[in-house]
């Protein structure tokens, strides 16, 4: 647009600064994008995607929390364009009502002219109400059906003077608010909360409108110089270099962390020479895109250009003597927050509750890196397994972060599920998510969920810890797959080996010439829960015994003939002889053996003492 005097507004610099004062930490996704506090997005040019979107605020939703929108309503040069106030999507039944109430002091209300109207549009129903009348709560809409209804609120531009003072416009409804866009609410209104819905998922990977200073998806953006656009608003113009409609100056827009792409639309470039140039963090030019203009003063044209790279700065340079306004969209990045690692210290990220083995290291990928200290970790029970894993009470936030898996875990899982069970029923498992919060503790980004869980070996070792097996907790290296000499009758695919025992037992196998001894093994390794079940399952809090079967240091061998209900005295004598000899052989080699004395708890158990020979060593 060629320079022409359109007259300046009554807006002072101080007033503008007031309007520009947004929260120091703004939103990063479309659900809570910062909004230009000076100017409503023009209707029909951006739609809901350009508006801040808040979740269901129940029966009471704040639409305006300051007099900022009234400044736009006072922009008489764009009188034909109404000021977008809010859009609500509500679901109710026929008869549900929507009410508005204005909360402001009397002087403020009295300063509002009666022709400053708030218009309520719901489909074909359009209702306009003097804004000042809303000081008494008014029903502005009554639903005729139970369908989802989109309600759009706008202000006309009949305001000659912006009253000073606080003002709040609140929507109340008996219907359910499914979604609400309230672009004039920055940093959260009294009843506005972030919405985890539709537009939230990939907002930061999409282009987001950046038309004023603020922080967008974690990237702080600064404009110099800057003024809100005061022309071509209906076409979508958002900012310009200077107030009024004088000759435009170059605008430098700086990103504190490089962004992927910048798209700028120039409104009414007339002369050749309008351009955007992008620079990286080192100040190296990344490219230039021009807005050549139409060469015809007074005829509006819009031209759009995009530059893509790791852009740290762009400079919008107008053609000499030209007046140009702009709007801008920025693609911040593909993802700003993800959990890249949540792992214990053991192989595969496994862990136990034992000492340093309980320490889980957390790592998140955050863009920009300056947000790393703002990462807050959420750790809870993995909902996809059958174990109730107690989450940590304390987590060291930031990335990297850490937490210790609590040592107090319920042993109930060892008795709840049928023996032998599976890992899904026994492994400790925690779900880890990350969030980035703003200065107010408000969540502005949530990550994917990562599960940190025990592998099979640590699940086995966990039994030793939680069941307080008195010997020790075996090292991971002591476990391995079963083989002929280590048959697996326990609950897992791995068994525990002990070289000392194996060496001694190989001597017994060699010495025993009666029959191949390996084929007679009836009991070898038992994990603690298996051993627990092998003996009596008592109360869940009792000890589980100290069997060396739990360390691969004990073996049971069948005696022969195998005794049963039809065995006669000769069979019993033969079995006893077998027992005597095998036992003597084992003792000679240094094994310890179970006594033949009958268990006093089971004095009448058949074949007690001679049904099998239990040999063991006290291994370390």
């Amino acid at each position: 647009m060629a320079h022409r005097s359109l007259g300046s507004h009554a807006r002072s610099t101080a007033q503008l600064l007031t309007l520009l004062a947004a929260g120091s930490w703004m939103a990063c996704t479309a659900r809570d994008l910062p909004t230009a506090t000076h100017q409503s997005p023009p209707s029909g040019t951006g739609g809901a995607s350009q508006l801040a979107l808040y979740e269901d605020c129940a029966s009471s939703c704040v639409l305006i929390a300051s007099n900022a929108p009234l400044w736009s309503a006072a922009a008489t040069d764009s009188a034909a364009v109404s000021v977008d106030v809010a859009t609500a999507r509500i679901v109710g039944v026929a008869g549900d009502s929507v009410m508005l109430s204005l909360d402001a002091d009397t002087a403020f209300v009295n300063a509002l002219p009666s022709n400053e109207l708030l218009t309520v549009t719901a489909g074909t129903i359009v209702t306009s109400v003097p804004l000042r009348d809303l000081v008494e709560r008014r029903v502005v809409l009554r639903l005729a059906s139970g369908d989802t209804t989109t309600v759009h609120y706008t202000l006309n531009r009949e305001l000659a003077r912006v009253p000073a003072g606080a003002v709040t416009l609140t929507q109340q409804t008996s219907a359910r608010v499914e979604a609400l866009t309230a672009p004039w609410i920055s940093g959260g209104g009294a009843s506005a909360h972030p919405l985890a819905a539709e537009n939230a998922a990939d907002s930061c990977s999409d282009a987001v409108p950046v038309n004023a200073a603020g922080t967008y998806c974690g990237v702080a953006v600064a404009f110099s110089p800057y003024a809100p656009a005061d022309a071509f608003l209906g076409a979508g113009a958002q900012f310009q270099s200077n107030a009024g409609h004088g000759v435009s100056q170059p605008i430098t827009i700086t990103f504190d962390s490089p962004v992927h792409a910048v798209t700028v639309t120039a409104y009414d470039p007339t002369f050749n020479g309008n351009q955007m140039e992008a620079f990286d963090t080192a100040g190296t030019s990344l490219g230039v895109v021009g807005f050549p203009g139409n060469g015809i003063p007074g005829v509006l044209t819009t031209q759009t250009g995009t530059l893509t790279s790791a852009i740290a700065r762009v400079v919008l340079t107008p053609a000499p003597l030209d007046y140009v306004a702009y709007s801008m969209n920025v693609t911040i990045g593909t993802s700003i927050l993800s959990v890249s690692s949540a792992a214990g210290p053991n192989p595969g990220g496994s862990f136990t509750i034992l000492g340093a083995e309980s320490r889980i290291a957390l790592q998140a990928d955050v863009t920009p890196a300056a947000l790393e200290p703002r990462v807050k970790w959420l750790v809870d029970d993995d909902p996809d397994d059958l174990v109730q894993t107690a989450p940590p009470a304390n987590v060291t936030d930031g990335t990297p972060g850490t937490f210790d898996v609590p040592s107090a875990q319920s042993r109930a899982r060892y008795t709840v599920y049928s023996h032998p069970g599976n890992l899904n029923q026994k492994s400790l498992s925690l779900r880890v998510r990350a969030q980035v919060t703003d200065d107010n503790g408000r969540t502005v980004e949530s990550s994917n969920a990562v599960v940190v869980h025990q592998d099979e070996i640590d699940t086995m070792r966990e039994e030793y810890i939680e069941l307080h097996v008195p010997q020790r907790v075996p090292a991971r290296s002591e476990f391995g797959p079963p083989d002929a000499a280590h048959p697996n009758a326990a609950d897992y695919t791995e068994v525990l080996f002990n070289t000392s025992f194996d060496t001694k037992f190989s001597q017994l196998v060699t010495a025993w010439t009666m029959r191949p001894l390996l084929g007679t093994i009836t009991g070898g390794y038992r994990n603690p829960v298996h051993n627990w079940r092998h003996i009596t399952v008592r109360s869940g809090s009792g000890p589980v015994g100290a069997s060396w079967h739990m360390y691969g240091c004990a073996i049971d061998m069948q005696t022969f003939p195998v005794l049963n209900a039809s065995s006669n005295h000769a069979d019993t004598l033969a079995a006893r002889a077998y027992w005597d000899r095998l036992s003597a052989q084992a003792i000679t080699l240094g094994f310890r053996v179970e006594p033949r004395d009958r268990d006093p708890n089971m004095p009448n158990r058949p074949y007690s003492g001679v049904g099998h020979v239990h040999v063991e060593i006290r291994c370390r």
Partner: protein
Amino acid sequence: MPVINFTSPARRALTGILSAGFAVIACCALAAAPASAQSVDSLTAALASTDVLARGSAVEALSQMPVTAIPFATRDALIALLEREATGAQPVDSVRPNEADEAWGEYIIGLADLVRTLGDSRALRGLALLGIQTSRATQEFVAGFGAQALPQLDEAWTTKPDARPSVVTTWALIANTADSTTRIAVLHRLFAPDDTFPIALADAAVAGKLVVMVPFLDSLGQSDTVLPIAQGAASEAAEKLRPAFTALSADQLLAQYNAILDGICLNSTGALNGYCESSTNGLDNSTKHLLKDSGSHVHQGAADQARQEIQTVIDRTLNAVANEVLTPAQGILLVSGLRQVIARIS
């Protein structure tokens, strides 16, 4: 016979891989960390629990302590507990175990081992009644008390039939190290007529290095009156002892058979006393005397006289077996052995 290699290259390789792969966690793999740390007082109190699992866990936890760190009160409790378990005085558990429950037996192993390490003579009864069934170490510990252990072993022999094989072995261990008087007392028990445990005797012969039992074991190995498994045990024991037996001279052998005869004849009465002690024709020609004389004569080089005296003992022994004054086992022990002596007299 299949060759079983428990330390196969494959397993060693696996261990190596695991070790290398897990090196990163070497700092936190608590390979020998006790699963729980309880106070000695609480462990001592747990020894009185009616729950065998509680007692067993306490015993294992105490076993991990240096013996010198175990307080006297705890030692007393352990010794008393073993004796209660050995004599059936320990109250039974309030919860009936599963049929497959081995907790009590395994707990006894640990308890006996721990009590043994205390080195306390007050533990002798419990160890003799129960502990010797569980390990050679305990058998050797009891045997170390020599004659002092015999009353406790006699009690075990009398009250615990299942313990008799272990008692036999322990006797043999005493015989190997005790003074001559105690040795005779032990041999008396070993070859007592009221029971025989061929497998236990074979094991005892090896454990006590009773090499003079080789001819007896050879006979046992060929006897169809015992189970094949006992034959095998006897033959194996004989083979183990044969080198030492072969190396003995005739007078060395005679000295040992004299001790065996003294043992068989110890405190003899009735017909056995007649076999052992009676002389005829006013001569000092009792069986014991003849066998001792034969030793002297071998030593003096009077071979023929020695052979004649030994043969007389053999004949009398055969006669005593025929008249059921001696058991067949006693008869075989003496006759087969003495025939070997005759063959060695040059």
